């Protein structure tokens, strides 16, 4: 009983404190905006870079943190004018598991520490993104909100702020174009690279590591309820799996083509696009990346073949021929063996009977 009272008491104490804080914050905001409400407010970093210190009040009011006081996040600001070095905001002040203010927190966030971004940040790379670089600062919103910079529609743009070259390549791709055509399933950066788990493509655990590419692509391209909706064939993953490329990559082959080796990475285009790596005239060049001396012969014949389907052409007929050859030979041989045994059995019986 005493324990329960203690907890209830603590709860009231905390909520009371929180209410006070919020009230203080709400009052404090205009104070901050006296300076930070001016669009011209900026600061020159030691590196010479000029950064804006302007805070758009309207943006802040629309954000998920509308009810927060400036100092809830900028906790190192205790006086005006500010003293000492102003540090980056640390989100984990609130976003930790079991936090009392109800800030969202999932275990997956912790994967950030093992991600390529997290490792770089921990190593002291000032350019490595932390939470607010992707999720936004004063404009932070839940990803479901279409105005969020973490909303699927804005992810390429958000990532592109740092990964500019990749972003411009991606904007040429069929994935981006499909996305523009309101095909919301089309892949954005995070669909292939992951979110908090994002890793270097050289890390064997990465979704984009060379042997894991087929698996990553297959999440959409083998799913009838994803790409099937748009009339894209789903058996390409299976036919790749049956090819020497597919088998070798599954069982530890490294010098072997995955989806991206032929189709491209960020700038994947449809095969009827003359700029596509798999456009028929580009096939010798594409195959030639691995197969020395590749010529037009490489383009004669389909690439993704299912020998059990008529579209496979001659391969289908050869497969059919062998199927019936094998069946008939086996029927003949097993028949011969069975008759032989049958005769032996009869003779043995006859020998035992008087």
């Amino acid at each position, binding site marked *: 009983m005493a324990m329960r009272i203690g907890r209830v008491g603590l709860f009231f104490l905390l909520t009371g404190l929180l209410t006070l804080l919020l009230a203080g914050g709400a009052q404090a905001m205009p104070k901050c905006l006296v300076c930070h409400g001016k669009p011209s407010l900026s600061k020159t970093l030691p590196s010479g870079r000029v950064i804006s210190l302007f805070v758009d009040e309207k943006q802040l009011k629309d954000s998920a943190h509308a009810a927060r006081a400036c100092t809830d996040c900028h906790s190192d600001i205790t006086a005006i004018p500010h003293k000492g070095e102003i540090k980056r905001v640390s989100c984990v002040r609130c976003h930790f598991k079991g936090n009392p203010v109800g800030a969202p927190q999932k275990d997956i966030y912790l994967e950030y520490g093992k991600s390529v971004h997290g490792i770089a940040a921990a190593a002291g790379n000032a350019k490595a993104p932390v939470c607010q670089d992707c999720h936004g600062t004063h404009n932070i919103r839940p990803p479901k909100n279409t105005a969020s910079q973490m909303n699927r529609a804005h992810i390429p743009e958000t990532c592109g702020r740092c990964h500019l070259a990749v972003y411009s390549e991606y904007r040429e791709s069929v994935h981006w174009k499909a996305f523009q055509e309101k095909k919301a399933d089309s892949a954005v950066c995070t669909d292939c690279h992951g979110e908090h788990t994002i890793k270097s493509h050289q890390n064997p655990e990465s979704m984009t590591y060379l042997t894991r590419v087929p698996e990553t692509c297959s999440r959409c391209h083998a799913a009838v309820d994803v790409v099937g909706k748009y009339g894209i064939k789903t058996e390409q993953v299976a036919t790749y*799996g*049956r090819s*020497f490329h597919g*088998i*070798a990559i*599954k*069982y*530890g*082959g490294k010098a072997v083509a995955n989806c991206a080796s032929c189709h491209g990475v960020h700038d994947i285009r449809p095969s009827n696009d003359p700029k596509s790596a798999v456009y028929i005239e580009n096939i010798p060049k594409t195959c030639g990346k691995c*197969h*020395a*001396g*590749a*010529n037009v*012969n*490489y*383009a*004669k*014949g*389909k*690439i993704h*073949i299912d*020998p059990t389907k008529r579209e*496979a*052409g*001659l*391969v289908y007929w*050869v*497969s059919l021929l*062998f*199927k019936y*050859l*094998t069946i008939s*030979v*086996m029927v003949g*041989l*097993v028949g011969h*063996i069975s*008759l*032989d*045994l*049958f*005769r*032996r059995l*009869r003779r043995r019986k006859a020998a035992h009977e008087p």
Partner: protein
Amino acid sequence: MNEGQHDNQAAPGVGVDLQDPLRRELEGEIRRAVEAELSEELGQESRDRVVTRLKAELIEEIQARVARVKAELEAEILARVIPAPAPREFERFSGNFRAQHMVLLLSCLILIITGLPLKFHEARLSQLFFDLVGGVQVSTLLHRIGAVGLIGVGVYHLFYLVAFREGRRNFLELFPRPKDVTDLFQMFRYFLGKRDETPRFGRFSYVEKFDYWAVYWGMVVMIGSGLILWFLETALQFLPKFAADIAREAHSDEGLLATLAIIIWHFYNVHLNPEHFPMNRTFLTGRISEAELRQYHPLEYEALMASQTVRQTPPLDLATVGPLPVDPMAPPTVGHGTTGPPGQQAP
């Protein structure tokens, strides 16, 4: 006559129990001779007749015994002199031929073990296999080692067929003939109980010919398609990509067909067949027993017997033992026709 003969033979003159008619006759004669107070001449004549009769009977008995002992000795001598009538063996496969088979066997074993996991790449056993050998790179290398063996023995075999007398002879024997078709039908009739005997085969039965030509076809398909896949970049300088796809399909399917034929058919014929279980050793020793040769390859056996005098220990010539000192010219002359002629000794 027969009875008398039988009596004579069964009643030796060793004085034991002369059988009734003879005894009675002799006793009567003796009694008459003693009681009748015969003249000197008559008594002498009577004695002579008795002596002659006894002599003839003794000769007959001795001859019978000698014949019996002779037969026993003969059997014993034959058994010793020609040791355990050594089951004769013939060479069926030469060392050269067996070496080819051995290389083929080992190559196929490697190729099958490293090839099937590629065909059944979705099976868990394949996963286990690749984990075990250390990935697809290692299994590829092993597969190519097997391929070198297979190609090597294939090329050598062609050379063997041309350059060796034995090779040429075997090849001619292996060539399909109309008889193979009739043999097959007769074999089915035998299986169904409509014949009591299997057809009579020559050096190679239709089963062995099928095995040989199946391997021949398999080698052509597997080596041809395998080389395209091995030297893909070179092959694609001349061939369109779909030819490589066909090669891959044929390689995969024929590989399975060959594997099934080996596991089901060849293993049955060599190992599981009740006649040879657990194994017909001819592929190791190269030898086949005379009985087996006669049973499974009667035509070859007969041709062999006809064409060559097979060296063998000559059977013991009983003539050299010489005749026994028996006087064949001493027929019993005692009357009443109770004795048969001499010389009717046991064969």
